[in-house]
Structures are given as structure tokens and as C-alpha cells.
């Protein structure tokens, strides 16, 4: 949603549902104040600015006009596989190989990596990948203790990291970590990522009935924050965060009660 509002390009990848659906279920911009993130404006166009981010009403979907104002690319695995069922890359799972080729192609063709410098104004590519590592991507790390290929996901992440580092892009990935039995894989995935955040829902757990948590729906764990271009490491002063999901708002709060 931030990408659309900031005028960035989007790349949405999914194996589960068509990317169009994901974009529709996104958020609707609320309110009259428009708070523009100055970091993005430095690249897009020079303007004075104030704060960071926007507000969204998550009970509504985004207007099609707003979506049309930006350029977005989609990757829907079942469709892509039917076009290129045999694509191989360093013994990696076919789905991941396809996805990497697709991302690399968009980065190159749209000039996010600095190629075609005269073509147009610099912009940012925001990439979203849903449920990486799940069975739908053809990976068995979620369904088996001893997966057939434990390196596919980490190889994918390494190559993706390389692509992101050399281009004006950022990527958010969701991983169903509760399904991954092999903890070593999760440790490697964490090491290959810049920022790692975990959402733990209270539904179905003993915390659901705990009075301390009655106002919240789950916990937000910050496992790792980016350590780029700096000697300093993780210095956030609190890691106890909880989240609450209401009709129009998703809030994250410091957990003072715990």
C-alpha cells in the first residue's frame, strides 16, 4: 500500500492466489492529512516534507484509480510454471528459479539497477513475496523433517539479496515459519536477511485467555534489525511488542504489562 501511495513500482509474487487479489485486499487511504515520507521524495522529486508513512483503513480496498497510477508486475506461480516448466538455476527449486529470473528481468528492463540511466526518473521497486518456503512453491521444507533439498530456499535468498543490493529495490517476504520443522534452515534464513520480524498469534494458544493479553491479538517479535553501513549493532531498547487488529486499524504497542 505504501508503494502505491508513494508512486513506486510494485512486484507481487504469489503461489497461492492471483496477485490481483492481493492488491485488491490492500488498504484504502484514509484522511485528509497526507504525510509523505521524505526518504522516498529525495529520490522521486524534491519537496519539503514532514513525517513518515500514511494511514490506511484496512476495512476497505484500494481504489482502482490509485492502483492504475503506478506500474505493477505480477508473478503467479501456476501461470509462470505453465510457461517455463523446466527452468533450472543451480539445482534450485523450479518455482524459485522462475521467480528469480522474473525479478531480475524486471530490475534490468525497468532500469532499477542503473542500466538505461537516461530512460527515466529514478524510482523504487517494492517486491512482495507471499508464503515463501511453503508447499505451494514446490518446497518440502514445511512438510518434512528431512527435506529433499534444504538449500533451495537459502540459495534463493542469497541471490535475491544480491539483486536487492545492486538495485533500488526493497523486498518483504512472508514465511510460514511455524511449519518449518528444520530449525537450522530458519537460522540460515535469518542470517541471510536484513530485518526479521515474527508475528505470533494468540489464537489457539494458552495466551488467548491470559488477562494480561486481553487487549491484544498477538505478539510482534523483532528478531533482527538491519546493520548496514555501520559498526553499531542492535540497540533498540525494547523487544516486547504486541499487536492489535481492529476493524480499521492494525496497531503495534510496547507491552508494558509483561
Amino acid at each position: 500500500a505504501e508503494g502505491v501511495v508513494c508512486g513506486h513500482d510494485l512486484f507481487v509474487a504469489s503461489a497461492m492466489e492471483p496477485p490481483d487479489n492481493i492488491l485488491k485486499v490492500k488498504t484504502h487511504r484514509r484522511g485528509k492529512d497526507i504525510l509523505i515520507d521524505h526518504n522516498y521524495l529525495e529520490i522521486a522529486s524534491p519537496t519539503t516534507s514532514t513525517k513518515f508513512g500514511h494511514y490506511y483503513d484496512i476495512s476497505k480496498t484500494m481504489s482502482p484509480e490509485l492502483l492504475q497510477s503506478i506500474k505493477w508486475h505480477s508473478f503467479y506461480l501456476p501461470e509462470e510454471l505453465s510457461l517455463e516448466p523446466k527452468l533450472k538455476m543451480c539445482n534450485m527449486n523450479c518455482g524459485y528459479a522462475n521467480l528469480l529470473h522474473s525479478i531480475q528481468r524486471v530490475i534490468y528492463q525497468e532500469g532499477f539497477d542503473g542500466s538505461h540511466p537516461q530512460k527515466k526518473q529514478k524510482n523504487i521497486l517494492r517486491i512482495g513475496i507471499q508464503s515463501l518456503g511453503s508447499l505451494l512453491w514446490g518446497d518440502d521444507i514445511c512438510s518434512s523433517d528431512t527435506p529433499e533439498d534444504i538449500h533451495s530456499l537459502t540459495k534463493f535468498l542469497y541471490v535475491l539479496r544480491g539483486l536487492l543490493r545492486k538495485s533500488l529495490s526493497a523486498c518483504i517476504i512472508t514465511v510460514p515459519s511455524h511449519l518449518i520443522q528444520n530449525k537450522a534452515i530458519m537460522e540460515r534464513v535469518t542470517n541471510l536477511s536484513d530485518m526479521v520480524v515474527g508475528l505470533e498469534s494468540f489464537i489457539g494458544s494458552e495466551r488467548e485467555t491470559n488477562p494480561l493479553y486481553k487487549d491484544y491479538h498477538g505478539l510482534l517479535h523483532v528478531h533482527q534489525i538491519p546493520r548496514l553501513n555501520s559498526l553499531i549493532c542492535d540497540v533498540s531498547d525494547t523487544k516486547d511488542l504486541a499487536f492489535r487488529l481492529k476493524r480499521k486499524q492494525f496497531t503495534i504497542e510496547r507491552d508494558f504489562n509483561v
Partner: protein
Amino acid sequence: MTEVSSTRSVKARCGSFLVGTERGVQREGFQVAGRSSTAGSMSAAASPQGKFTLLRDTGTDGSFLVHHFLSFYLRAGCKVCFVALLQSFSHYNIVAQKLGVSLTAARERGQLVFLEGLKSCLDLLFGEEEPSGEPSPLQFISGSTSNLKALFDFVRTSLTPADSASWKGPVLLVDDLSVLLSLGAAPVAVLDFIHYCRVVVCSQLQGNIVVLVHGSEDAEDEENDLVGNSLGHHSDLILWVEGLATGFCKDVHGEIKIIKRLSLESTEQDLVQVYQYKIQERNVTFFARGLSAAVL
């Protein structure tokens, strides 16, 4: 501070801390809390050669040690081959500048050979055929081979002195070895690679090797532990950083355990020392447990 001499004891004065070394304490980069460091700079020529140093981190980020060794050896005039697998060149360059060293300049004058793993991997997978016909150092990722010979050849070629070379002692620096496992290399292939590097760099060329093996708190990665423990048995010096067991603290970022092998052959006890540290913008301060400035 890279090593703590076993002959100088630690002196605590009025709550501050002084660690004596044979070579004085570096002014910028790393310093010891309490006593302001003397202006003496470390001389790599005086430090022992042919040594293997293992850096390990558990549940925290030990890359500040890598940045330290990189700037230390470059400043000392050594020829450095840096196998940087996890971050881009500009990341290391920006940090190195804070520590007083320009990686760009070092690379241009031939003192630094920098392998940017991320870039090399992209070239291998998306680039055109290698014009010189030489295999990519990270050839093993493509699956065409299971050993790390191409990477070893790259290291050997980088550090074997050319005719006009005038650098003091070669150094191999690796950040971080665990990435090789994530990319599909078997632990035994990684250990073989290090073994061959030791033969050439430490024994033949009398240079030093510094390698980081990253680990996590839960230590569920058996392959990673195998590599780390195996290398530990053959290291001359181990620097092991860990987050605090008691959780986050603003003034103490972690603990470092320094294990110095007095002798690889005899059964003499290793020298073990533990300090706590705090990382700042341009340097790292070390102090004895419980003697952080916040506590005093």
C-alpha cells in the same frame, strides 16, 4: 586490541581498566576503557605470522571484529584478500572510512583484493560467459562441482606475491563462512577449503588467516557447529562474542571470550579471558565484566 599478551597481567585501577600489550593500544578503531590509549600504533610486522584466528559469534553480530581486522591489516601495510560473502563492498567501505581506511584506495593500489560474493554470484547466474575462461570463484553454487577449489585458486592467486610486490605479509579474511553452507557446500568441502588456504597462506607464505563463523543462540545448525568446532581445534586464537545472557543492555552490547592457544601440541591450558564490550559509531570499547561506565 587484537591479542592480549599472556605475560602482561590485567591491572584494575580505580575502576578503570588497562590492558597492556607488547605493541601499545590503537588510538582509533578499538580502545580499552578507562585509560586513554597511547599513540603507538600496532605493527603487524611485530605480530606473530602464520597464525589462524577464528571469530565466532553466537546470538549477536560479530562483524565488528571483521571490520577491525580489515582496517588493522590494511593500515599495517599487509596485502589483504577479503572474501566478503554477506555484504556489499560499499557497506564495508563506509565502515572502514569511519575507522580511518579507504577500501577503494586500497583496492586501487593493489593492496586489497576484494571478492564481493553477492555480485560474483549474480555474475555467475545472470552474466555472460567469463571472457577470460577462468571459472568464477563461487562456481560451486551452480552445482557443476561440489568442492571449493575455484575459491581456493582465487585466494591463492590473490595472495601469491607478484614481482613488484612490496606488501608486508599476506592476510586472508573471510566473512562469513556459514554462508557457504547455506549455498550448498558440504561442511567437509568448507573444511578442505580452509585447510588448503592454511597450507598456502600460513605455512608457505607466512601470512595470517582470520575467519568468521556465525552462529545463532539456539545452535540448531549442526553443520555450522561442526565447521566452527572443527576450526576451533586448529586455531591459534579464538575470539568468541556472545550477547548478554541477561538480555539487552544499552551500555553493554555483549561479551567477548578470548581463547589463546599456547601450544597446539602440548596439553597446556589455553589462556581464556572474558571482557564485555560496547560498540559505538567509530570504535569499540572493551572492559572487564561489571566495570562498564554505566555501572560505575
